[in-house]
């Protein structure tokens, strides 16, 4: 069976610095996978490379068997791979609603519309005319998720949804995942928060210094091994 998304011997560099070494990763239809790892492990680089923001060899990334490594981000989102970027990256001079509409710029058909996103995050409808800077961190994260959903992705890549949020807010944000998965969307969550990642994922990859150091189902992985893979001790 061809995987929905696959990386094979994926490498990434920033100038002379190599950030990823031979990453092999697979994602099946409808699956939720977590990528954990300490700060600087290469998690964001991995997602950015899949999305076409960083260069890659064509064969290193495959979507339904087709080589897409190094393709332009515009082409990747049109195929149904959308990123919720690290740090949310809202368009700050645009309103909440305009941010969401930007997510639909590629006009990919699918279940997600403004109404549907507002049903998932009712607070955004109340604040639809407000600029992104006037939102709380949790609301900003909801806009970032909603904007990516508006692209109607079959693969949603989320980079540190919990970054800088209070635990109770993190719970609210993650509460959206079941409704997203119910549409058949496969999800990749990148997290430094191990517990959060283990709670939602069917499979986990642990990254350290640009290499996969551990992978498996959450129930197969005991805490000691995760700690070793995460911190390298």
């Amino acid at each position, binding site marked *: 069976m061809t995987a929905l998304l696959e990386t094979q011997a994926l490498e990434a560099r920033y100038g002379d610095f190599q950030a990823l070494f031979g990453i092999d990763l697979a994602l099946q239809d409808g699956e939720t996978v977590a990528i954990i790892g300490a700060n600087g492990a290469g998690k964001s680089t991995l997602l950015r490379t899949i999305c076409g923001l960083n260069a890659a060899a064509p064969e290193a990334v495959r979507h339904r068997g087709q080589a897409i490594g190094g393709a332009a981000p515009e082409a990747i*989102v*049109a195929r149904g791979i959308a990123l919720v970027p690290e740090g949310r990256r809202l*368009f700050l*001079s645009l309103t909440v609603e305009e941010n969401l509409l930007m997510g639909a*710029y590629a006009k990919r058909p699918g279940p997600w519309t403004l109404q549907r996103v507002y049903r998932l995050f009712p607070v955004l409808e109340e604040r639809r005319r407000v600029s992104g800077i006037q939102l709380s961190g949790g609301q900003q994260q909801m806009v970032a998720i909603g904007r990516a959903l*508006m692209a109607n992705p079959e693969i949603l890549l989320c980079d540190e949804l919990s970054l800088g949020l209070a635990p109770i807010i993190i719970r609210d944000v993650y509460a959206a995942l079941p409704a997203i998965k119910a549409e058949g969307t496969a999800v990749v969550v990148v997290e430094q928060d191990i517990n959060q990642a283990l709670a939602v994922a069917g499979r986990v990859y642990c990254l350290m210094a640009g290499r996969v150091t551990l992978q498996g189902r959450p129930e197969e992985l005991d805490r000691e091994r995760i700690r070793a893979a995460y911190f390298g001790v």
Partner: protein
Amino acid sequence: MTGAIDTILQGTLLGGLYALFAAGLSLIFGVMRLVNIAHGDLIVLAAYTAFLAVQLTGIDPLSSLIIVVPVMFVIGYALQRGLLNATLGRGILPPLLVTFGLSIIIQNALLQGFSADSRKLLLGPFETASIPLGPDLAIGWFPLLIFATAVVVIAALQALLHRTRIGRAFRAVSDDPETARLYGVDHRHLFAMAMGVALAVVSFAGVFLAIRTNFDPAIGPARLLFAFEAVIIGGLGSLWGTLAGGVILGIAQTVGAKIDPAWQLLAGHIAFLLVLIFRPRGLFPRAVD
């Protein structure tokens, strides 16, 4: 008293022309943070395009806009796509150097093609017709047309930016080009469209300039200076601010000229400096930067 009102009125109307000089510059800076040193020469290029259209087809100068606007749009698109896009994202120097070079190339090409002779487009009696408002007070039809065009053009640009899909994408790219790409915005195409729109606006500036005064290939840099001052006075990235900036510049110059004709330009520069001293971000700066 009427003298003062007359000065303010003429200055305001002149400000409409400066706003037309400046609107394209403001749009381009707002969307892609590009300072286009060749902007004034592109205004002059539009004037010569109109001159050529009038010569070749016998059309009247105002109607020549039907030809000049699309021609300048295409030139803008091609210029951005073929040349200026390559200068972006590498710091502030490359776009400055390349547009400076472009300015010199346009001036010399116009000099080759049209000589250094000064030209003017003739509109007939409408050029000097005016509406009397009182014993010593009259308002010219043609300056009024320029000002009304400036208001309409700026309102149209504002609507484009805030009510259309492509305008939304212009603003998104201006905020964060990388993230815009993630959702399917091809920034190279979008920047080219923005330059096309800017040069469509420049067409109005060029045609009005060519009807209002004599022009020759060398007058571009001075128009760039007026446009630049209007944009800075109004506040970077604000289009209505650019109109206000044009009006303030126009009034300052008219007042200066009233005191002593040699003071016209100097008074404009002094107004510009005063705004820079007291409001370094201009009068109506954009909320987010």
